[in-house]
């Protein structure tokens, strides 16, 4: 079991995408909500900050998880660390 440069690169890319997605998660959850009282404009009929907490954030979360799964599953193949055909 020896780590190769390829393995290190794969892990580095994984950390990078994890960090970026985590930053989006943090922004939507904590930054937007922190400023909720100031974000009072209407958004398709909803007060924007209410809509974010009731629907917008959830859509972003699903997007983050879906994108991560797609990105990593492709990365596995690209770096030859994917499991054998399982389905």
């Amino acid at each position, binding site marked *: 079991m020896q780590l190769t440069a390829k393995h290190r690169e794969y892990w580095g890319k994984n950390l990078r995408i994890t960090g970026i997605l985590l930053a989006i998660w943090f922004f939507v959850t904590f930054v937007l909500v922190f400023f909720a009282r100031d974000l009072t404009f209407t958004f398709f009929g909803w007060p924007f900050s209410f809509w974010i907490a009731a629907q917008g954030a959830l859509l972003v979360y*699903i997007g*983050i998880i879906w994108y991560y799964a797609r990105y990593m599953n492709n990365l596995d193949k690209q770096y030859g660390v994917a499991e054998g055909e*399982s*389905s």
Partner: protein
Amino acid sequence: MSVFGGVGQTQSEFKKGLNKIFLWYGGGFAAFVVVLAILEQMGLPKNWIGYTFLAATVLLYGGIGVMSRTSDAAEYYVAGRRVPAMYNGMATSSDWMSAASFIGMAGTLYLTGYGGLAFILGWTGGYVLVALFLAPYLRKFGQFTIPDFLGARYGGNMARLIGVFAAILVSFVYVVAQIFGVGLITARLTGLSFDVGVYVGLAGILVCSFLGGMRAVTWTQVAQYLILIVAYMIPVVWLSVKHTNMPVPQVSYGYLLQKVTAQEELLLKDPKELEVRAIFKARSDAAVEKLKDVPASLAADKAAATKRVDDLKAASGPAADIKAAETALAALPKDEAAARAAYNAARTSNAARAAPPMRHAEPFPGRDEAARDISRKNFLALVFCLMVGTAALPHILMRFYTVPSVREARQSVAWSLFFISLLYFTAPALAVLVKFDVYTLLVGTPMDQLPGWIARWNIVDPSLMAVADINKDGILQLAEIRLGGDIIVLATPEIGGLPFVISGLVAAGGLAAALSTADGLLLTIANALSHDVYYKVIDPNASASRRVAISKSILVVVALAAAYVASLRMADILFLVSAAFSFAAAAFFPALVLGIFWKRANKWGASLGMVLGLGITFYYMATTHPWMYGLFHSGSLTPEILKANTWWDIAPISAGIFGVPLGFAVIIIVSLLTKEPSKEVQELIENVRFPNFDGVPSQGAAAN
């Protein structure tokens, strides 16, 4: 049995078979509801509909248990690791959504408006952490329980046993609340007593998980998800069509929210509303006066009540009035302590009802800037604790051991959140729909023309629904309605004017939500004890069938213990559930995440970090929550002590906000001060990080 995965099937054959089964199941269930609806029209009594729903669903879950019975360890503990991503997503979401999500969430949103959205955010955003930090790596590790990972990663039994302790603490508290919910729903659905309800529900849980372990629980949870989501949607869609002519409440309620907001401004200034609130304010003030000299007030109350009885008798008033006055006299507090408690209760309850209604869409309401800041801080802290707690609940993480591969583990988190969001998108819509109904249609109705559901629910449980004409004007004001959160979901079919069979369906959905969560939790506790304590620590040579047998017997004992605790009806059960999130967050999250992402973390750091993180969380709750304070201190929690014990105005429910960072800090510092982990452990970490490392795929993968 080949129905839920037999030998020699390929994964795609298995998946096709599953699709067929659940298609038939969906059709069958729809036909069942339609037949019941027809029978109702023909005059089947309501409680028979209730019995039929209860019997049919419990038999269904038991039947799945019988069909997938097993004594094979991999089948029993992790459903043979062959659950396709989408089905695991459904199972995870019903595992996740408890009675609190199904019945309580919309009510909380109705009562607290924007404040309640902390639960929506926290209970969905946590899945981002599950997806990015835990699910794929735990799947690659591929053992049976969460303490398993701690044991392997942090070498030896210390971290494993701390994990077992935390897993049992968190899961037991949670399962008691579910069984409590099962009892309540069964009682409402059928009119049986609460205790009978608890044991009937328990039977459903046990048949299923006892016979088939994780395999049976998985397929039951999929079946339960389908029932609960349909049951939740039908009345909300109906109500949405009624108020907006749109069948998609999640989209259309923005328009209603505007109307509710406009109505709130009117109700805030309405003179009749002000009058009712002033009466409550006066009652609260009177209670404050009485508290100044309790013995004298009690004597005065007695004298007044006695005088009224005597006056009525002397004037030969109507018999009903005399009886009422005598009852009032008999209901007076017996001694000084009782009187003090009664006056205190009158002060707080009347003061609460004297408060103006809050604005539904306003974030962090408060009297002044400082109060708004505290409200915002607590909202964010609660969101943080719920998110991290979600990503640390053993019964949820365990589900990701059951998929065939790392690849499907990643997809499965996305499916889970998708299925969960269907309900979580709908709950805020339901809250606004009911609020619209109450604010615009109900308020202003003459007292003698109120809709029937109000009187019916008042009889079922006055704490859920009570109206009284406080200012005697013959018209219902908003301030004259007292309503408990749970009624929002339970009464929606009646508010919308739907037949009783839909009410039965909603109750069956609530039951499915509670039972599915209880199944997963009981299995977590039983597996922690049988696999981690018995097999890994006490008798490492035990055969697989013996381990499964032991797990089954522990399951029965734990279920009975949980039912017993639930039947005590502890008042603060809801607080304990929220507390479980803070405990899970502080105990597991730092150790699990650092275990995967930081090779240097070692057993001393992890063990100490888990203990101290859990410890500080527990300590904070024990010094700031009234009920917990009472358990560990003599005397009660006065406002002065509370103020002195509170750190940065954080409410006890969010105690995990201290535990999680402390856990991280302790693990890092102590690990750096002690020896680095062995070579084998470092290799384990590398192995976990790559789905296929040097041709070693995740355990059990591609077996089919």
